[in-house]
C-alpha cells in the first residue's frame, strides 16, 4: 500500500501543477475564464476513453485466459471510466451553460452519445453485482466489456458524423487551434490526469486483490472450522 500512497501523492502533485498552469495560461477571447474548464474537461474524457479501452482489452484477455486478475482489471478500469465520464459530463454542462447558453441538448450527437456510454457502463457495473457466481459474473461482464467499447469511437467521431452543437477537437494532426502557452498547459493536464487514472487503477486493483484474498481465506476457514456434531457434544 506504500507504493499506492506514493502513486496517489505524486498524482496529486502532478494535478496541482496542471491546475496552476490552467489558471495562469491565457484565456480564450470569447469564452473568457470558462475556457479554463477545458483543461479538465478534455483530459477527463480522454481518460474515460482510455479506461473503457482497458476494460475491453481486459475482457478479451479474460475470455482467452479465464484468470481472475483480468476480470479485476476490467472492473477497476470501468469504475474509473464511469467516474471520469461523470466528471466530463459535469464540466461540459458548466461550460455549455456559460458559453452556449444551455447546459444540455439531447439533439447534440456528442452529448447524447456520451450520456448513453455513461449509462451503459453504469449498467456494466450493475451487471457485475447481479450474480454472486464469480465465473458467471466475469463472463457476462467480459462480453459486455467487449461489446460496449464500440461506443468509444462512436462518441469520438460523433462530432464529424453529425455536425451539431459540440465542436470538433482543437488539437488535430495538422496542428492546434490555440496559442502555444495554452497548448502546453492543456498537454500537461492531459499527462497529469492520465497519471492520476493510473494511480486510481492501481489502488482499485489492490483493493480488489485484497478483497478476493479475504473471501478465499474465509472460504478456506469455513471448510476447516466445522460445527460440532451432536454426538461429539458432551453433557455438562
Amino acid at each position, binding site marked *: 500500500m506504500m507504493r499506492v500512497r506514493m502513486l496517489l501523492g505524486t498524482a496529486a502533485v502532478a494535478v496541482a501543477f496542471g491546475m496552476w498552469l490552467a489558471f495562469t495560461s491565457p484565456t480564450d477571447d470569447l469564452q473568457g*475564464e470558462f475556457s479554463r474548464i477545458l483543461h479538465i474537461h478534455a483530459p477527463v474524457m480522454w481518460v474515460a476513453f482510455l479506461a473503457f479501452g482497458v476494460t475491453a482489452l481486459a475482457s478479451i484477455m479474460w475470455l482467452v485466459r479465464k484468470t481472475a486478475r483480468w476480470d479485476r482489471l476490467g472492473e477497476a478500469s470501468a469504475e474509473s471510466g464511469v467516474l471520469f465520464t461523470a466528471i466530463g459530463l459535469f464540466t461540459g454542462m458548466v461550460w455549455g451553460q456559460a458559453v452556449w447558453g444551455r447546459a444540455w441538448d439531447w439533439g447534440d450527437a456528442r452529448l447524447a452519445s456520451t450520456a448513453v456510454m455513461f449509462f451503459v457502463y453504469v449498467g456494466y457495473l450493475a451487471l457485475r453485482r447481479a450474480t454472486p457466481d464469480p465465473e458467471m459474473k466475469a463472463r457476462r461482464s467480459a462480453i459486455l466489456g467487449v461489446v460496449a467499447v464500440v461506443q468509444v469511437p462512436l462518441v469520438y467521431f460523433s462530432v464529424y458524423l453529425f455536425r451539431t452543437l459540440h465542436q470538433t477537437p482543437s488539437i488535430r494532426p495538422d496542428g492546434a487551434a490555440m496559442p502555444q502557452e495554452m497548448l502546453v498547459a492543456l498537454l500537461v493536464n492531459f499527462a497529469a490526469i492520465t497519471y492520476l487514472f493510473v494511480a486510481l487503477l492501481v489502488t482499485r486493483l489492490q483493493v480488489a486483490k485484497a478483497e478476493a484474498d479475504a473471501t478465499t481465506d474465509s472460504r478456506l476457514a469455513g471448510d476447516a472450522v466445522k460445527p460440532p456434531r451432536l454426538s461429539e457434544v458432551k453433557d455438562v
Partner: protein
Amino acid sequence: MSDLVLVIGTFAICYAVIFGYAAYLHMRYRRVKG
C-alpha cells in the same frame, strides 16, 4: 470575477470527487487488511 469563482468551484468539486474516491478505496483496503 464571479466567472473565475465558478471555474475554481468546478475544479474543486471535480478533484474533491476524484480524491474522495481514492480515500474511499484506501478505507476499503484498510478494512480488509486491518
